[in-house]
């Protein structure tokens, strides 16, 4: 277990009458980009929220960066950074202030926070003038760049991205994928990315877990999964694997 950043074993989660997770198990190695792939309602977001310490699992074993959850959530929160699906910015703050706010939360003094935010500003790829504008004036793509930079700039040991390019146009999605791929790999971070865009996951992730109806249906490298299912790409592999069980 020492080499694994995240370990989930037989994890169950129920919301009233809905069973969201049915015994999910997987491991994420350190410095790996791991993808969670599946349709809407498969249980990806619930899994990420459990790893992000926001939701308590009902049964099973969850360990993040060597700390068992939920007991070790305070330690885990210091070392992870989570970008929820459709996470917005604070509209009355500028892009720069959005970065500075999160930098202040993760650091011990304002000077250090400014350095972190400066680094975040370079990650966004936005110019000073744009960063000085209020987030309410941003396009969806610009806002997403700032949100991604806000998540990555603190250089967490584990970065968790839920649908990072959801709803973005081709150019914005390409730019976001570029930031993730270059920065996460370069810094040697561990990342978990959820998506229902199979091609995105195929291009970004070292290994992928296919999730359907609260269960992991397959885990492996994109290449392994494609070969195993004799498919042309990950999308086709997933369809073949899930077959008629998808509703």
């Amino acid at each position, binding site marked *: 277990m020492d080499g694994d950043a995240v370990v989930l074993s037989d994890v169950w989660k129920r919301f009233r009458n809905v069973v969201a997770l049915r015994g999910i198990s997987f491991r994420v190695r350190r410095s790996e980009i791991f993808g969670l792939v599946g349709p809407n309602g498969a249980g990806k977001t619930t899994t990420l*929220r459990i790893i992000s310490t*926001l939701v308590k699992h009902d049964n099973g074993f969850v360990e993040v960066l060597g700390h068992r959850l939920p007991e070790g959530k305070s330690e885990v929160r210091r070392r992870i950074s989570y*970008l929820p699906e459709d996470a917005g910015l604070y*509209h*009355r703050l500028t892009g720069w202030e959005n970065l500075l*706010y999160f930098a*202040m*939360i993760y650091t011990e003094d304002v000077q250090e926070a400014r350095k972190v935010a400066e680094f975040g500003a370079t990650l966004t790829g936005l110019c000073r003038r744009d960063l000085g504008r209020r987030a309410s004036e941003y396009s969806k793509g610009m806002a997403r760049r700032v949100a991604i930079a806000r998540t990555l700039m603190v250089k967490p040991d584990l970065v*968790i991205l839920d649908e990072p390019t959801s709803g973005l146009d081709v150019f914005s999605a390409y730019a976001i994928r570029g930031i993730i791929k270059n920065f996460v790999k370069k810094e040697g971070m561990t990342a978990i990315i959820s998506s229902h865009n199979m091609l995105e996951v195929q291009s970004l992730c070292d290994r992928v877990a296919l999730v359907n109806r609260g269960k992991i249906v397959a885990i492996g490298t994109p290449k392994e999964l494609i070969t195993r299912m004799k498919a042309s790409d990950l999308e086709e592999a997933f369809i073949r694997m899930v077959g008629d069980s998808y509703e």
Partner: protein
Amino acid sequence: MSKLYPIVWKETKDMFRDLRTLSIIAVLPLLIMPLMGLSSIYLQRFQYGVAVVVDNDRASATIGNATFTSSDIANALARRLSLNGFTVYREESVKDFDVEVVIPRGFINNLTSLTSQALIKVVKRVGSSKAEVAISLVNAVASDLVRKVANAKVMLLASLANISVKTESVIYPVVLSIGLVGPYGGATTPEEDIRARISRLISFSLIFVTTPSIAFITDSIIGEKERKTFEALLSTPVPRYSVVLGKVLSSSLVGLVAGLSDATGLLLFFAIPSVIYGVNLLGYLTPSIVATHASAVYISVLASLAMIMPIIIRTGSYRASQAASLSIIGVSSIVFFISLYVDLPNLLPLVKYILYVIPYTHAVIMIRNAVMGLAVNSIIHGLIALAESSGLLLLSVKLFNDERIIYSKT
């Protein structure tokens, strides 16, 4: 860096940049309340009022040296009504009136008799606010007449009996002598009494301070959840007490601005008419009273936030928060309204201790004690209100549940 600082930094920036809302909340009461005060006076003056004054007696008589004529009395009534904006008709045929005043036949005879009472007939239109004004004017003229007639009769009887009489000792055989005593038993001045009355008014002005802060804190938490920024924040190392306290402190600052504006607006509402009528209420506000008022406003704002916070935290819903905020505003209205008429510390113990559970009660008593010069008691009640609010904030931290907030329906 304390994790409280970033939360307060962001929240205050966010709130104070919402200039449109802020200006509506802060500036409008300062304009509207005095305007209401002014309009309530002037509109009443401009309100059309019709009075009919009829002299059916057309007689005169004397008592001793004094002569009383029904036409003089009718004229005095008509003049008083006319000076106060009434259109006065002198014929009984006019039926569309607010008030009709009739001096009936035999009035002067009865007025000057030693065995009868004279009657002035007044008919008022149901639901007419001007009729109430007219009746008070007629009463004033009648009181003047009563004093003159009584004086004449007493002097006549005294001369007949050949005794020395002082009119006032016959008309007003009992006079109340009202002295004033301070809270510690020492003598005090009428100004102090006026100040004590003003303290009730100041307490009542707190009635408006609760609403804006509650709106801000609700938006601060549920709005953040709706805009999908809360989830990212909750996954950071920021402690939950920092989230609760940071949002409460920053909302309380905005609430303080709005609350002071509301309270000042209400004081202007009362003060402007008083100035017009020659009683400068604002002149009685000493710096210490103003400071206590500001503290009470802040404590009330904080109390409102502390009361609504556990509900927002628990439900994460706009609807539930709105319903709860209405209840809180209801409770605050009851406390601040009864403070106009009731001495809260002198209530029956059961009622008093129930009210003491509500932080607003202590804000009211705090003002009252400060005005009465009981500084220590004032501070004690301020501290009790703060302690109660702190307890509720602690409860909010205990109730904070990430999962519940994330999955609750807004």
